[in-house]
């Protein structure tokens, strides 16, 4: 079947099987391999992307169901060569180690800050509670999001603060 959807602002049309999962469409058909997969039961959250502005687990969405809708992936966080404060925050605060859960965590965190610019630690932990990290122990992820919250809307100084970019 044919499907048309918007991915990171670009309209994409493709001929796909109805059963093709959105995560596989993004990764294998569009080469957007920043979104990952790590389980069979919608538990790990390494596949989180935005669907019409909301975080969803793309392993549990059919590409067909995303037809006519807007998808946003981690590759779209960086805009005009500038990293999103979320991305800066994760680097500043060691919010990642192996990096596998990181895109999903950042997409959820970005959505959180868009709705709640000043989340408490509890709010942050709650927001990411459907996603698993095996490396960081979550404290640094919380701090990364808190860093981003205090630097949101302040992209220039955020870029200058990192020792690598």
């Amino acid at each position, binding site marked *: 079947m044919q499907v048309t959807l918007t991915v990171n602002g670009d309209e994409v049309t493709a001929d796909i099987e109805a059963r093709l999962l959105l995560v596989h469409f993004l990764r294998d058909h569009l080469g957007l391999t920043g979104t990952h997969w790590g389980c069979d039961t919608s538990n790990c959250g390494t596949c989180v992307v935005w669907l019409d502005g909301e975080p969803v687990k793309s392993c549990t969405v059919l590409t067909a169901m995303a037809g006519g809708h807007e998808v946003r992936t981690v590759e779209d966080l960086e805009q005009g060569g500038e990293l999103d404060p979320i991305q800066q925050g994760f680097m500043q605060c060691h919010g990642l180690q*192996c990096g*596998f859960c990181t895109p999903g965590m950042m997409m959820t965190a970005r959505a959180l800050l868009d709705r709640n610019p000043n989340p408490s630690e509890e709010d942050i932990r709650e927001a990411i509670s459907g996603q698993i990290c095996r490396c960081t*122990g979550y404290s640094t992820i919380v701090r990364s999001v808190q860093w981003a919250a205090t630097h949101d809307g302040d992209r220039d100084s955020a870029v200058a603060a990192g020792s690598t970019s």
Partner: protein
Amino acid sequence: MTVTEPKPAPEFVDNDQKPVGHGRMLRKEDPRFVRGLGRYVDDIQLPGMLHLAILRSPLAHARIVSIDTTAAEAHPKVKAVVTGAALAEQNLAWMPTLSNDVQAVLATDKVRFQGQEVAFVVAEDRYSARDALELIDVEYEPLDPVIDVRRALAEDAPVIRDDLEGKTDNHCFDWETGDAAATEAVFESADVVVSEDIVYPRVHPAPMETCGCVADFERVDGKLTLWCTSQAPHAHRTVYALVAGLPEHKIRIIAPDIGGGFGNKVPIYPGYVCSIVASLVTGKPVKWMEDRTENLVSTGFARDYVMRGEIAATNDGKILAIRTNVLADHGAFNGTAAPIKYPAGFFGVFTGSYDLQAAYCKMTAVYTNKAPGGVAYACSFRITEAVYLVERIVDCLAHQLDMDPAELRMRNLLKPEQFPYETKTGWVYDSGNYEPALRQAMDLVGYDDLRREQAEKRERGELMGIGVSFFTEAVGAGPRKDMDILGLGMADGCELRVHPTGKAVVRLSVKTQGQGHETTYAQIVAEEIGIPPDDIEVVHGDTDNTPFGLGTYGSRSTPVSGAAAALVARKVRDKAKIIASGMLEVSVADLEWVKGSFQVKGDPTSAVTIQDIAMRAHGAGDLPEGVEGALEAQICYNPSNLTYPFGAYICVVDVDPGTGQVTVRRFVAVDDCGTRINPMIIEGQVHGGLTDGVGMALMEIIAFDEDGNCLSSSLMDYLIPTALEVPDWETGHTVTPSPHHPIGAKGIGESATVGSPPALVNAVVDALKPFGIRHADMPLTPSRVWDAMQGRPTPPI
């Protein structure tokens, strides 16, 4: 002869984090990961690439009567279907394990665990490959499975390994360490003896990225390139050469970015071998990525030790001896990664952080109809089990003596003047200063206040627990005279090359799976040769362009490969000094090294930077007598001993008396990993390990029913902590350098996974003190806690 004008040294961030500078520098690898540009195995797409899927046994123990692959072969998108019989014709149906056992690549005669590989298909896409599996018809004759490890050696137990000549039982190996007679004598005359049955259940590392590979056999060159989730690419390459009969120089293993390893990615799995065969057969690249069920059910599990711990002491709490009897479940094949002389890894450190008069361990390892493995999940070769045993049994002693567990430990910890300390099981702890670590942990957590709070709460029937654990672990395998895996000594190489313009590349034998090597190794080298870390490229994971070594696991990178990096950088610096002497026209003795440049002593204006020297080394003109051009060096480092990180952990839990739910309120971890390279990365490693501990203590278990069906075959059933189950971690540190390591570093990767489970279990048992129980086994789910509160704690198996 011209002297190069001294140029100002590049901006050097001289923070106070000596002896390895740049301390908390941000990670060099992060920029690609935060952009979603990490390159993991499943990201790899090659032209014409095919997909492999594995058909697995639904039964734990069964004879294979027949396999009909005709329907699968007829599927329009299927390119090949291969069974064990086909592999057997090429002598590829069986392969060696890392423990000198053999394991089936594809089952030939029988299946021996649920999830065992039976056949594979290769198809145009992964969806078709999955469909084709359903078209393979296997007829099984079910056999009685051996699932209860305590009955594996029963008279009537079915024999699992009838593939081994003359095998008539399920015995895998026996092992012992220590002095049985001396230990018995101490126990006989001791004031107090406490015994407890302590189980460390089967758990699984479950990294977020599952295992997989892309195999690309290039027919004309005869070269195999294998992208693989491998923590030990060189070791894998040599094993493939030995097993598959491919010449080693024609095998290239590339471990790209790996999404977590934790020991799960050390073994060679049948799936990798199948992919290689598939690529050979089809002439195309073949990708295999296992799904999560396959990962949990068939790949290297961890632990599964049924232990009886005994501790002998005086009435006033002086620990005299520890004895243990262990029944080890190795699954259907002995697939643990263990140095040959150490089939039980380093379990011998069950003597703990205490000065014992005697110690003895007797272990029996058996086969069962479960997945192979055992050494994984930050296991440091069984140190997790050893530390859990000793720290649990010490707490049982504290319970028996009605003594505060921190106080009991304080009385028995080894003293700094006793190091290097040889344990009663023959391990030589390199250095340690234990008391300050425990004091710091107690101060940070506010121990006395907490005990007061606990007393008040107990009066009101509230359940609050404080758990202490002190661990010493042995990491950094290891000296080649004693330690080899499948005959490959555990010494590691390192190569450093400085380019003409003063940038450098360091090539490692180890392979990070998130531990930050691209940063920490740049820091190690930067400190030795004065080139800023950002100017040092770290290369790892590709056997074609890195030196040989045994890979990353058992926290061995920093102690072994980190040492190699420091020493090879010093070699380069030594050579640079000679070149500098020529440039400055002085003798080597007149030079001193100051922050990236060699200066003439007493005349700082007479100096050349390492960058100047690099250009000179490649440039025109003579070099000093006996000095070759270029600025590089290579080394193979054989450690003289393991290193012994240690730590003091204190945990506070609250237990809901109505439901048995455990909340981890606080966790303080004080670690000593010797010289600290990057404190930010160290803290991250500790946080991750502490979370593992919460997982194992409270919710993780790979469970089976009596038919051998794995009940923990998805992340819905194998529960891993989320951000809501863990507190904000509190860490501290002390620094006791390793005397034999060039920069005194010991390694940190697995410390927290080792030290935290006993702290957590000790805390929960402490919370349940009003109910009179002395021990309860992991996982302490609400139901199992409630059982303990009723006075009937049960083992999980």
